[in-house]
């Protein structure tokens, strides 16, 4: 039982932090990047590829680096710290994760190799209007046409979908045959890009007889794998949220020490310092849960990962609301502005949560299972 990083993990953190510090030295740099096309920094993306960061989750035979969840979590935390708009969680962890989980060896080597090299952008289209975090697709339907497959329907929101080269789509198989996963080229869909509340890019993707390549064995129900990859994405998304929360508390304490009103700095007022102390409590608790959930992945048990995703999802929701809201309040008016990172961080937390599964959703799932165990043990 150990909650510390080893030297290599420390070095990875330093390297990623250093790289991100050049691209996003301050919040102004992020503002410029999200205002311009394609909404993230392509040069930074290329450097992440060179450093092997894009290939971290994938095995070496698939063209990746074969790192573990802790390493990927470190990257996500660092991205969260600076609110990096790069489509890492959506494109690499989620879409790439789906390919890794269900693709044939050939498909994996091709797609993940190019993804790791920074030559291919993927986005996962797994949600249709009205869906709420289900692994079973119904808004996009797959049909067999001749000796190929086509898709019809609408996916939205597709996170990172605005500039994706290909979509990894979950679609209902014919005759109630479950949910398959397909690869569709961007040229074969109509897409409208937009910015989410945190100014990261998403898209509505419409399929109208779009040519689709089944990933893995055609026609097989892949819902369990889809669910597991969503759970992994949730846990890594929790790492990203943790990075945001850490930055928000740091910014808030810095501000309380420097901002003066009534002739004194704000940290003179215990009403404020106590609220900062409560933020710290929330942060420590969620930090423990994020580490735990991330370590649970290594155990390789799907059910344990699903439970960890719900548990960390709920905890991240609680602390995102608490810390994200208090960070704005304790900054006063400046916390409301787009030019200041604190409030934008709260927007990012809201997007992460509603994308990956919100607090009430995870609580409902956990509540459904309260009588299947006597007590919950950490170890």
């Amino acid at each position: 039982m150990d909650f510390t990083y080893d030297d290599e993990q420390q070095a990875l953190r330093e390297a990623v932090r250093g790289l991100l510090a050049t691209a996003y030295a301050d919040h102004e740099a992020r503002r410029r990047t999200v205002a311009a096309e394609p909404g993230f920094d392509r040069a930074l993306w290329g450097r992440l590829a060179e450093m092997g960061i894009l290939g971290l989750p994938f095995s070496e035979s698939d063209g990746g680096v074969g790192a573990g969840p802790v390493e990927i979590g470190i990257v996500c935390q660092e991205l969260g710290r600076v609110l990096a708009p790069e489509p890492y969680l959506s494109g690499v962890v989620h879409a790439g994760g789906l390919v890794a989980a269900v693709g044939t060896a050939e498909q994996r080597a091709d797609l993940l190799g190019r993804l790791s090299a920074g030559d291919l952008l993927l986005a996962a289209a797994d949600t249709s209007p009205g869906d709420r975090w289900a692994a079973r697709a119904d808004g996009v339907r797959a049909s067999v046409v001749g000796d190929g497959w086509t898709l019809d329907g609408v996916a939205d929101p597709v996170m990172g979908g605005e500039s994706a080269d290909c979509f990894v789509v979950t679609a209902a198989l014919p005759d109630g045959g479950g949910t398959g996963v397909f690869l569709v080229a961007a040229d074969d869909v109509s897409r409208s890009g937009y910015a989410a509340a945190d100014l990261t890019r998403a898209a509505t993707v419409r399929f109208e007889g779009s040519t689709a390549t089944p990933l893995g064995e055609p026609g097989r129900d892949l819902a369990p794998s889809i669910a597991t990859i969503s759970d992994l994405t949730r846990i890594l998304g929790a790492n990203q949220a943790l990075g945001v929360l850490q930055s928000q508390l740091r910014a808030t304490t810095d501000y309380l020490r420097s901002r003066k009103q009534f002739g004194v700095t704000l940290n003179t007022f215990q009403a404020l310092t106590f609220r900062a102390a409560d933020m710290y409590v929330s942060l420590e608790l969620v930090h423990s849960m994020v580490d735990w959930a991330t370590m649970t992945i290594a155990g390789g048990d799907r059910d344990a990962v699903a439970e960890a995703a719900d548990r960390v999802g709920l905890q991240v929701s609680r602390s995102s609301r608490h810390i994200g809201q208090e960070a704005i309040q304790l900054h006063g008016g400046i916390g409301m502005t787009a030019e200041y990172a604190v409030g934008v961080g709260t927007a990012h937390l809201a997007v992460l949560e509603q994308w990956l599964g919100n607090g009430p959703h995870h609580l409902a799932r956990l509540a459904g299972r309260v009588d299947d165990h006597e007590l919950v043990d950490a170890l």
Partner: protein
Amino acid sequence: MMGTPPATPTTRSHMQLALSPRDAEFRDRMREFFTTKVPREIRDTVLEGRHLTREQIVASQRILNAEGLAVPHWPTEWGGQDWTELQRHLWHEEMQRAGVPAPLAFNASMIGPVIAHFGSEEQKQRFLPATANLDIWWSQGFSEPDAGSDLAGLRTAAVRDGDDWVVNGQKTWTTLGQHGDWIFTLVRTDPEVKKQQGISMLLIDMTTPGVEVRPIELIDGGHEVNEVWFSDVRVPGDLLVGEPGAGWTMAKFLLGNERVGVAPVGATKRALATLKATAADQLADPLVRARVAELENELLALELTALRVVAHSSDGAPHPASSVLKLRGTELQQAVSELALDLAGPASLAARAGDDSPQEGWARRSAPTYLNLRKASIYGGSNEIQRQIISRTILGL
């Protein structure tokens, strides 16, 4: 990652969830001992939230002490164990899980370590074995009517008279003082210097003439705390620990230890599990299920934080985040008691009914327990004081 062909398993110890085989074996040994060697009746009393008698507390501690499990955090020459922080944590968790009463905190966590650290050789010989074995029941005489959170404002005075000290004043909130054989007190030995520097630690035999213990009734109807009055109490000079004026240093040392042991994660988990079982029919209500699920999640986050804290504590110095454990641990302890009260509903009104009450025991105890546990966020450094510690020492505010 999962979904990709499994990477070669590595055997590194960093970022690892499982206990090492050695620690797992340790935990099983603790579990085995606690669940088989401490009488069922004592453990049921704890698990059901009933009051222990003095005899039960003493009996339990002696069983632990005979096995070297009463004071593991003391120096080994005085009965301590050469354990890691994690092993101490596992010992504490397993104890709570089994319903074994923790060794009396006043003895094991408070005055024992102080005497072991600051006492004379003679004091160690005289008090430590008896303290570990609960042959002496210690009371804590720190708080006074006008000195609570601001403890350094205490006024109980000890004045030199030959080799002796003569003590006058009043302590209050003395937990279980009615059982006390001895009381360790903070007394003012020098009114002239800065207030922290005029304080000393004096050990007082509670049978000495001039010591009077008066009960205080609490909101749960129980007699748990007392006032202790001192009128011209004559205390031999060799019962002052360390140097005169060093009492504040010892108090800080002691209160730091108190904070670490005070987060009852295991006991709260146990209480919630028991509640789930006894009020199982109410789990049909989705709102109840949601409250239980939320509490279980909060407790998991707290337990994990406790593990992070023990893993990072070095040299026994408390990790700064130990304030989180006190703060959140007591809040959750209170929240579980609040859930119990809600689940009991009207049955909770029968709190003081006789044994012929048709209501179940747990439900009748729920209101007193809920009321009693309000104390948890007040003592051991109130939760506001913990916020002060966090904002000042951790956040630098």
